[in-house]
């Protein structure tokens, strides 16, 4: 399976994301100013501060040249994973419901958190058991997940809340401890924690790897 990781000006986790993908498949770099997805099966929008997070996190990146192709790719059912800043970009682009607001404490948080898997029947989580607990770091200032009440209820009902922070672990004030959501169709997944930083026991945890290897097991969408 071929993964493509986009680099925007200001991306800082693109190299780690490529290395994580390379552990389970082929990984190539994609450039924000290109209109070419290089025939990848999965697009990863990595963490960082694309375009300096000017205006709102992800607001400018959402109009980068390559995003035209990413939006079309997602519309055709292609897999897209947005991590941290990539999650913000996906929300701004309308690929995912909701928005990310400034952390409730207004501070940058960087810590290992425990996540609970809510939905194990997505292509991104199929390698995990329902209710699995994952130890994965977060590092962000704008990670408080928000959706208006009706949208939030619909997300829960449809199983679109994929990951949540374990009780007492919510680092940012996200509604209902939400850490990751998927779109209605089930091919675009966004999360604030960084699975690409948790792929080797050497750095504390390899729990993040399953979110990449699940896709390999799921195979390219038909």
């Amino acid at each position, binding site marked *: 399976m071929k993964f493509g990781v986009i680099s925007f000006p200001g991306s800082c986790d693109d190299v780690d994301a490529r290395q994580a993908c390379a552990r389970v498949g082929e990984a190539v770099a994609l450039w924000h100013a290109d209109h070419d997805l290089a025939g990848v099966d999965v697009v990863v929008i990595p963490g960082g501060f694309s375009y300096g997070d000017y*205006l*709102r996190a992800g*607001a400018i990146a959402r*109009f980068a040249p390559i995003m035209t192709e990413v939006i079309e790719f997602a519309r055709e059912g292609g897999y897209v994973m947005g991590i941290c800043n990539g999650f913000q970009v996906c929300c*701004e682009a309308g690929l995912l419901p*909701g*928005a990310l*607001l*400034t*952390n*409730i*404490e*207004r501070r940058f948080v960087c810590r290992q958190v425990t996540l609970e898997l809510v939905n194990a029947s997505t292509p991104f989580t199929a390698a995990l058991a329902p209710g699995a607990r994952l130890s994965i770091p977060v590092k962000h200032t704008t990670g408080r997940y*928000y*959706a*208006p009440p009706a949208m939030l209820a619909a997300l829960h009902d449809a199983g679109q809340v994929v990951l949540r922070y374990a009780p007492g672990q919510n680092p940012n*004030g996200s509604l209902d401890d939400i850490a990751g959501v998927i779109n209605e169709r089930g091919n675009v997944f966004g999360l604030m924690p960084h699975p690409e930083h948790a792929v080797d026991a050497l750095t504390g945890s390899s729990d993040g790897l399953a979110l990449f290897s699940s896709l390999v097991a799921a195979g390219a969408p038909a």
Partner: protein
Amino acid sequence: MGAVKARVLVRPKAGILDPQGAAVARALPALGFEGVSEVRVGRLIELEVADPARLPEMCERLLANPLIEDYEVLVERDGG
């Protein structure tokens, strides 16, 4: 036709917790300014536009995120 000066005010929507506003509301009494409440911190965008009729569309698509923010467009009157 020349450009028209405009201002766009962007605010967090009612009901959305605004920690920045809350921090300011806590800081003012510490300086002796009592009786301050309901502080909300938003954003002011000043711009010059050829066609001010397109400002709402600009707000919807980029200047604000309508899911979490309200916006208000103020166009400067001629000679104003």
